[in-house]
């Protein structure tokens, strides 16, 4: 697989480390009254869809940026690549 890095262009997926579902950007609030239940879901439960999947790839063998890759798990086709930083900002998780 080739991942079209937003800054570096097409890179071999072997340079990256897969870090799971991009919903992990949304860490629960530790002060919430049901924080334990929220963290159990966050830590252990996954949608695991057959089809489009937004996922985190860490460019460990490159510029060490985190990406959000949208990929079809039934064909491995990658349709969108964004910097995780931009996604987190857009979704209100970072400044």
């Amino acid at each position, binding site marked *: *697989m080739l991942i079209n890095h937003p800054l570096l262009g097409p890179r071999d*997926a*072997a340079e990256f480390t*897969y870090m*799971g579902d991009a919903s992990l950007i949304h860490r629960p609030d530790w002060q919430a009254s049901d924080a334990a239940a929220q963290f159990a879901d966050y830590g*252990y439960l996954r949608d*695991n869809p057959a089809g489009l999947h937004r*996922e985190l790839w860490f460019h460990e063998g490159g510029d060490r940026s985190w990406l959000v890759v949208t990929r079809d*798990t*039934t064909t491995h086709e990658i349709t969108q690549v964004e910097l995780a930083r931009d996604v987190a900002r857009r979704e209100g998780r970072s400044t």
Partner: protein
Amino acid sequence: MRYSGFRVIKEALTGHRGWGPAWRDPEPQPAYDIVIIGGGGHGLATAYYLASVYGQKRIAVLEKGWIGGGNVGRNTTIIRSNYLLDGNEPFYEFSLKLWEGLEQELNYNAMVSQRGILNLIHTDAQRDAFIRRGNAMILNGADAELLSTEQIKARYPFLNTENARFPIKGGLAQHRGGTVRHDAVAWGYARGADRLGVDIIQNCEVTGFVMEGGTCTGVETSRGTIKAAKVASCVAGSSSRVMEKAGMRLPIESHVLQAFVSEGLKPLLPGVITFGAGHFYCSQSDKGGLVFGGDIDGYNSYAQRGNLPVVEDVCEGGMAIFPNLGRARLLRMWGGIMDMSMDGSPIIDRTHVGGLYFNGGWCYGGFKATPASGYVYAHLLATGQPHPTATAYRFDRFNRGLMIDEKGMGNQPNLH
């Protein structure tokens, strides 16, 4: 029809006209006591033990495609019980004991071959860990023996024991481990279950669950609604896709694992060797092909095919330890979809939905577990209680901090 040597001779002398189908092809009934979703090894074994050990009647196995067309026909056929942790080792040893009696019980030649499995050691720390694991195995009634480099060289003279990065410093052997003809396991259990009255319904895809008052009372299928007092999902690889229809999210990611077989060669490799440090393991099939594999690709996939970096990684590992492998040509390579769970161990449990049961999360170790998985799942379905060897395989172990994490990797499914 019982199979026997006399039967083979009789049929040979009479033109092989007496062989019948090994199982029926029934139409689905409107209702059953127990419906098992998934006609793989585990589902068929569950049906067999429900009928044979637990005396259950009116059982159906629903299979989307044809039986044995999933992971039971895609694995690398190894059986073993060399686990460390208390939650696992009694279960896998129970499974290995069932393998030992399987062919007589089923009257079916599954080619169970206890040719032994050897885990290679490269460092002092790894030797300590393997000695500990061997002792845990012996405490649980399994067999384990620590071998020296000389003993390994005597059995496997072609292994490269002097690799600069991973010199072979010994190994942990389980002589009762080995290989089994994987398709025959599915066929043997299917035939055994069918003879006890189980309906095996192929080309019957489950498209939804019938829910009444929060209780599961049947399944919607491509061949109509089938009611059932108990519905048992047994579809490792597709667990999330099926259980999503019941509104469940699982502690599972689906990953692709690749496997390889070389052209047929003369007998070369007498047992199973695993080179964990180099992500490579290998055995030789009775047809002569070297059957080998390594790590999962590492990203979510339902595609049943992987990518080339892992092919390269597996073959590099093979060449490092097993240099004459390079003279063999690769015949086939393929992929299968694994239920990678959050701690690397399976789940066999009831769900929060009444009447709905779950068996999955087998990671890439489901084949060796086939007999015990079926047996303990049948026990759960028939008695409502977990089997004594499977009490740890509960859904709630993650929330309660009771994970069964053999590799100590935490909640990263692609690292187990």
